[in-house]
């Protein structure tokens, strides 16, 4: 009997994890009202690799709201996804449009550098903003209604350093980071500060430029300094090449990085040498939060490729939007007030709400690259 009960509990728990949140759509104060959400994303251009999963996630979320998988309280939520084509001027034009067309909330833009141009335009027009991938410092200080559900690197990296130090006991570290991108530069700066605070000597600091493909000169210098650990402050395209080239050069050290390396394709692209690389991130494809497994399965089925963190954060933003409309928010002011007082929202990132400084309150996950994806770093 005891065995049967435990089996039943395990079965129920498994089903709960695999199935999406299946609560039927309720009729809230916003039932029947139209709510337009403006999304600015880099679907094409250099940052298209991040903006495309975001666009996909909003498409899926839109389907899910219509079908009742996401409960938006009966509101007719539409996501108007505009492609900024990785062009700062285009981002500004799109946001200008959102300030005049009845948009209740802006989601995006894709990059932190773009947010620094776009968010002030929205702020000036009292249009609230929820960034889903803008992780550089200072983004939420751009306005009293600029929020983000993306964990900043400052929130993730301290945990990454603490956990790796406890297991690896390293004394000397080398850092390589992109110095012409807000995200990767933040990675380099925050890792350096955190390592120094942890009394780890930084024996080499090397930089590169976005879209570089050859990192062998920098890695040769790093190898010469004999570090115990290599910190890679990079987005996925450069990060995979840095790791592969480090391995090829015989730089046999532990490696770690930030959110930018969080792609389940890491092992396939960077090769077997990437096994064991530690990644501090906001989301795991194997995360056991309510609805995450279902989100991964349905996204993969719809788009033929598994979601990445950018998709997950976008989908979570749509879940936050649904929570807001469910509570009756339909106008920019109501959206802003709603985010301020948001009770914990259940999302594919886990339960989240916002800090008083408008950063997301959520726990980072520390992952380790293995063949086929990631496992939790223990």
């Amino acid at each position: 009997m005891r065995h049967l009960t435990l089996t039943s509990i395990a079965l129920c728990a498994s089903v709960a994890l695999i199935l999406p949140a299946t609560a039927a759509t309720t009729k809230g104060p916003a039932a029947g009202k139209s709510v337009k959400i403006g999304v600015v994303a880099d679907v094409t251009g250099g940052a298209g690799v991040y903006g495309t999963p975001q666009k996909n996630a909003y498409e899926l979320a839109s389907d899910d709201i219509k079908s009742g998988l996401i409960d938006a309280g009966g509101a007719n939520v539409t996501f108007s996804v505009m492609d900024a084509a990785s062009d700062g001027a285009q981002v500004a034009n799109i946001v200008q449009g959102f300030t005049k067309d009845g948009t209740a909330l802006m989601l995006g833009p894709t990059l932190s550098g773009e947010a620094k141009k776009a968010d002030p335009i929205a702020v000036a027009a009292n249009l609230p903003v929820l960034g889903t991938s803008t992780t550089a410092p200072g983004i939420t200080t751009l306005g009293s209604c600029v929020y983000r559900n993306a964990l900043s690197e400052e929130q993730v990296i301290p945990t990454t350093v603490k956990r790796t130090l406890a297991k690896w006991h390293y004394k000397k570290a080398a850092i390589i980071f992109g110095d012409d991108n807000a995200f990767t530069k933040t990675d380099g700066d925050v890792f350096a500060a955190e390592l120094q605070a942890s009394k780890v000597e930084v024996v080499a600091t090397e930089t590169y430029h976005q879209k570089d493909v050859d990192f062998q000169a920098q890695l040769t210098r790093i190898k010469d300094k004999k570090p115990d650990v290599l910190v890679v402050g990079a987005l996925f395209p450069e990060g995979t090449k840095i790791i592969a080239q480090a391995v090829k050069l015989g730089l046999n050290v532990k490696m770690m990085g930030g959110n930018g390396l969080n792609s389940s394709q890491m092992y396939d692209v960077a090769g077997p040498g990437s096994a064991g690389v530690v990644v501090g991130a906001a989301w795991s494809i194997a995360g056991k939060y309510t609805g995450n497994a279902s989100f991964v399965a349905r996204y993969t089925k719809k788009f033929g490729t598994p979601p990445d963190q950018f998709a997950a954060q976008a989908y979570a933003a749509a879940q936050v939007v649904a929570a807001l409309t469910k509570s009756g928010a339909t106008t920019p002011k109501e959206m802003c007030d709603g985010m301020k007082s948001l009770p914990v929202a259940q999302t594919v990132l886990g339960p989240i709400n916002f800090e008083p400084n408008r950063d997301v309150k959520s726990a980072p996950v520390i992952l380790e690259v293995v063949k086929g994806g990631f496992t939790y770093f223990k």
Partner: protein
Amino acid sequence: MIVQQLANGVFLGAVYALFALGYTLVFGVLDILNLAHGAVFAVAAYLTWTLVAAGMPLPLAALVGILAGGVLGVILDRIAFAPLRKRNAGTLVPLISSIGFAIVVTGLMRGGYGIDERHFAESALPNAPLHLGPVTCTPLELTIFATAIVLMLALSWVMRATPLGRRIRAVAEDRTAAALLGIDLERTIAATFFLASALGGAAGILTALQYNSLTLEMGGRVELKGLAVIILGGMGSIPGAVIGGFALGIVETIAIAAGFSPWRDAIAFGVMFLVLVIRPTGIFGKRALRAA
């Protein structure tokens, strides 16, 4: 460390040189810059990747890619250059025409392949490190370097010792005189485009293999450096493109090795500027193709 850094620079420079050879060949013959060379570079790489993904052995796929690059070069000439040549359109209009061709080709590739970066399967590439004295490299890098050198030597041989090379040099020297001597100008120019674009295609394939990366922007990334290389080496000079390519690769690497990684492009182009101030026609001077 310095020996390893020099090796890094040589590996980097080999691809620059190979790319620049095609650039300089067309300039030497036609006095025009072919800014679609980067698009050919990318097309050959993507085609090779496609064939390998479909199960074709890498060497065969690379050969098909190189030949396809050459054919695309001939098509490029027929569409973007030949009609303007007939109208004596000067040098600026064909430059714009080649940019248009590159944009169209890149757009078609975007439609076919999407914007995501592509990679060869790691298992298809010989990437186990080799330790040759103080230098660590991979069999793939050695193969790429050797292939680049062989192709450069082959081009030099074609230009010096074959009837085609003599025809190309005659056309480069004086088109009217070459035509009066019975040389078929259009066929010779088409052959020049085939050779130049096959070399550009080879450079694209080798670059894609070296960094295991294919992107739609891969041609544009190397285009500016290729242009700098042929200016440094001397517009139209084959030895100049080779020396310039290796020089740029080594200077970039040494700049990083000396601890100036944020400044490496500025240093590389600064050195180039100094060379040009001292010798405005580049290392080997203009019009060296005729003497190739």
